[in-house]
């Protein structure tokens, strides 16, 4: 089964779907939506089969395929997945059908073309799968750049107020980041033996001159830090997340931003181990600042989508310190965080979208006491909030705990400051919930007929899988951590670090487990 070309088929499948859906005339919106949804389900099924075929204890990279592309540069269509890429691919496969179903009526109000919208979503899925499946640095770069295009049009054509401003800002931030990376990619090609193959480059990594490696690291890092985004490169995200349709925003922060953290793990750490260690203190500082700074900003927001965007920036701070703490707990926690954040913040964005679709406004001050009108929806909203503040019993708790405990063993001071972030997380979530759904009913809400309609069957189908996964992985994360663990351990080996042992106990004194 492992010989089956999972990754190339998985990458191309949504592209074909995007073309098919785009060809459907505008009048047949229902057909376009149904085909897009069905298509994303096929991708999901194939991904599940791939998940089952993946051997957690086997080779680091599996399902490798390689086809000729540009021989003179030694750039090839090479695909391969390690445990980190696999969990991200699985997350993508789960989120897209959910978002497509959640976006069912998004286009109707704007009189724009539904087939185009859903075609763009599938095109976006194509670029997302490609960027995580690529094992050729040039191929990765190409996907890294073209993934901007569908998202640019989704925000710019289908977004809310200020969508043009947000779309251009998003595009330019990413493009500039991409330019840094392009320079670094070319530099890497020159010093790394004139190849783009990740495996060969990783082997050549040790021979790169120290200074050169640091500059190359910086080129990649800036691109990824903008994408993630880490403080202080974050100001595009609240605008983009605030302007994008809620479903697309869920994909934006749930999946696309993870390219940044994934890129750091795969490319920065493995290709430039010495530079990674050298830059780590600065990255840790940025991460810790991001956690506190973005959480404080989230507290002060009056727009639901901007608020959730800021919470994501804070969460990316956790992922950042998890990556740069260089322990297996923190590293596994960071990757798990990427998955859990996709589920939890994805759910939060989707539910926020349901509120906004009813109210016709994303301003918190336009709500108030909504729980009285839509109790079940308010309950789901609250549950998503709990996942976002990493309550035990929800999946994000495990990842946040692992990041913090793993960071503490090597950098206690950073971990302590980051832990203060969990207090702020409670503050922004609970205050958001209070201002939106609790308190006296805002009289203006009763005049909006849609606000009287509680969660629909379609909406239940949308949120149910996410809620279930969040709870399941909150109690039993082993299936995912078992896949992530070996890949993270291999990465830590690349970086050349080992976990510290317990400081107080001599090994033989410990009670045998």
């Amino acid at each position, binding site marked *: 089964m492992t010989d089956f070309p999972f990754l190339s088929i998985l990458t191309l499948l949504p592209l074909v779907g995007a073309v098919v859906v785009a060809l459907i005339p505008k009048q047949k919106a229902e057909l376009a939506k149904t085909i897009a949804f069905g298509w994303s389900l096929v991708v999901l099924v194939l991904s599940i089969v791939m998940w089952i075929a993946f051997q957690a204890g086997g080779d680091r990279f599996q399902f490798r395929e390689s086809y000729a592309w540009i021989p003179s540069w030694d750039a090839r269509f090479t695909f391969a997945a390690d445990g980190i890429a696999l969990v991200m691919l699985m997350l993508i496969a789960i989120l897209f059908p959910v978002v497509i179903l959640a976006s069912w009526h998004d286009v109707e109000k704007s009189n724009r073309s539904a087939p185009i919208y859903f075609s763009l979503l599938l095109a976006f899925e194509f670029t997302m799968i490609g960027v995580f499946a690529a094992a050729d640095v040039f191929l990765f770069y190409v996907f890294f750049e073209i993934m901007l295009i569908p998202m640019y049009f989704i925000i710019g054509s289908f977004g809310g107020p200020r969508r043009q401003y947000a779309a*251009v800002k998003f595009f330019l931030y990413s493009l500039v980041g991409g330019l840094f990376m392009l320079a670094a990619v070319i530099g890497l090609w020159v010093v790394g033996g004139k190849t783009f193959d990740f495996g060969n480059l990783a082997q050549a990594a040790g021979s790169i001159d120290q200074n050169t490696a640091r500059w190359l690291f910086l080129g990649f890092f800036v691109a990824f830090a903008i994408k993630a985004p880490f403080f202080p*490169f974050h100001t595009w995200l609240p605008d983009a997340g605030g302007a994008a349709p809620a479903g697309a925003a869920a994909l934006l922060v749930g999946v696309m931003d993870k390219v940044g953290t994934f890129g750091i793990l795969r490319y920065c750490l493995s290709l430039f181990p010495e530079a990674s260690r050298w830059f780590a203190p600065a990255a840790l500082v*940025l991460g810790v600042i991001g956690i506190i700074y973005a959480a404080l900003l989230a507290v002060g927001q009056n727009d639901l989508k901007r608020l959730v965007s800021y919470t994501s920036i804070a969460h990316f701070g956790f992922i950042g310190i998890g990556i740069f703490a260089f322990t297996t707990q923190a590293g596994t926690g960071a990757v798990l965080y990427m998955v859990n954040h996709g589920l939890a913040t994805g759910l939060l964005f989707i539910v926020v979208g349901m509120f906004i679709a009813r109210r016709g406004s994303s301003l918190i001050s336009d709500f108030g006491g909504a729980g009285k009108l839509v109790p079940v929806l308010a309950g789901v909203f609250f549950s998503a909030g709990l996942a976002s503040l990493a309550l035990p019993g929800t999946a994000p708790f495990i990842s946040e705990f692992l990041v913090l405990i*793993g960071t*503490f*063993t090597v950098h206690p001071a950073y971990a302590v400051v980051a832990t203060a972030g969990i207090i702020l997380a*409670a503050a922004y979530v609970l205050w958001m919930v209070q201002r939106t759904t609790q308190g006296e009913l805002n009289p203006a809400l009763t005049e909006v007929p849609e606000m009287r309609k509680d969660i629909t069957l379609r909406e239940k189908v949308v949120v149910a899988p996410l809620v279930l996964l969040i709870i399941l992985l909150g109690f039993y994360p082993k299936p995912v951590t078992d896949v992530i663990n070996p890949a993270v351990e291999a990465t830590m080996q690349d970086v050349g670090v080992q976990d510290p042992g317990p400081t107080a106990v001599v090994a033989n004194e410990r009670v045998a487990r």
Partner: protein
Amino acid sequence: MEQTVEFAPASGVLSGIWLLVAIPLASAAILLLLGKRADKWGHWLGVLSVAATFVLGLVFFLNLSGLDAERRSAQISLWDFMAVGNLHVDFGLLFDPLAGVFVLLITGVGSLIHLYAVGYMEHDPGRRRFFGYFNLFVAAMLLLVLGNNYVMLYFGWEGVGLASYLLISFWYTRPSAATAGKKAFLMNRVGDAGLAIGIFLMFATLGTTQYDEVFGNVSALSSTTVLVLGLLLLLGAAGKSGQFPLQAWLPDAMEGPTPVSALIHAATMVTAGVYLIARSHAIFTANTVLQTVVVSVGALTLLMGCIIGAAKDDIKRVLAWSTVSQIGYMFLGVGLGGGAYALAIIHLLAHGFFKANMFLGAGSVMHGMHDQVDIRRFGGLRKYMRWTWLTFMMGWLAIIGIPPLSGYFSKEPIIAAAFERGDWTSWLYGMAALLGAGLTAFYMTRLFVLTFHGPERYTEDNQHPHESPFIMTVPLMLLALGSIGAGWLMSTSVPDWLEPVFGAEEAPHEAVLSHTLITILSLVVTVLGAGLAWAMFRRGTALEPQPAGVVVTAARRNLYTDAINEAVFERPGIYLTRALVFLDNKGIDGLVNGIAAGIGGTSGRLRRLQTGFVRSYALSMLTGAVLVVGAFLAIQLGWLA
């Protein structure tokens, strides 16, 4: 001092201890997921699941007592919760004598309060949801006391915090309830963060979070590490138990329905801090400075609670401050260490009975008085609600420590133990505890007299005092029996029962006063306090707040602790947040735009691009990059690292 801690693996009936958590959790899930379909019978499912858990707990308890003393524990691992690198956390449970008494308290008192709530919440449209949350609380609380490692404890710890939040803000359309719930969760999270860091420290130094492995290796830790670890755990404990400096949320929590106040904010959840310290006794006993801190927190909080409680007029808030104060006694007990661990647990159990008794009594009064809570507007209610009066009286006599009711057997030994601490501090803590006993007698008598005796002072026409239905008074009667007899029953049996946990009682230090003298003294201050209150309030009181001196004014304002919180944390926090929002919108983004505009003014070439966006964002990227490079340089030059 090398200490080995071993727990026996669960076998036979005891391997089913996971059911204690699973049954109420399943019931909560059913009640919350079925929605309106379960409205008709949901409350009975809620009661039944807790009652079944109680019966099951009793079976396990008896089974446990049948084991040899040195193997009197049952540990099971259900599945790997986290296994990464050398971190191994099981989803594991431990049923030992300490967990056993808590299970019985939680499910026993819990069953009675659930039953009571069937009546109390009868006319509330959200009754099913209420029972869902209530069951969720029981499940989380049982997980808290049954976990066999600190991560499980933390899991339950935050779980009860969630249930507490949901139930405080149960009437979420009231802004005050929503705010109180949020306040409780936030202040608890401050404590939780402390507890979490404590767990990190445990793992970093000992490589484990499992109770037996941690306690067995405490001697390997430096005394500074033990002190820091203990202080972090104490922060968590103070948050959950409403102890100084994290006490302010507990009185506000009275916004929740009264059964919630009785079960969560009096009998069980708020005592979790005491459980944490008692469970971690190996850590707390290992450092005398740490013990002194715990004792000081306890003594300070118990006095604060008394003083504020004496100035409040809301029946539930008086009881809430009384809870703060009584938990102060328990902290005093666990801080004293040695034999006082068991004394604190006895007081915790006895308090569970008499405080739940009085809270439910207060609920019964409110039920009959159209939700009036102001004790100045009660009076003479004994004629109208005989059972409530009689049962409340038992709670009142128990808490002030009149022999032979339970408070006498549980509180007086803690006072005596404080006098036996061994040095000059015996006087300090002993006198604080003694003074607290007198004050407790004063404010509780004030509450009792103003409510049930003296002239009738309710004025509104819609108040026709009446007794509550049997479904509410029967739990009151049973709890009153507990208030009467529990202390005497537990005074010798519980220390023996807990001996496998805390170890044999060490010989106490030389007491600075003889035990008989302390007993007499505490009875004297109690009678004085009660007598004074009786004399002052038997003829009723004014209906409006009267001008008062410095002390009473301060007490009415919670000794200005809320004002301090507001001035030190809340206001600056709001300003900081606003400033940052401004900075992020106008600052970081605007700075970039401003620089862009400045350069744009001098450079015709850039201006010709005319997109505006391109130059500002390209520049913003550069600025960001410059910042990062600057930071890297700073590190390289050794400014940061």
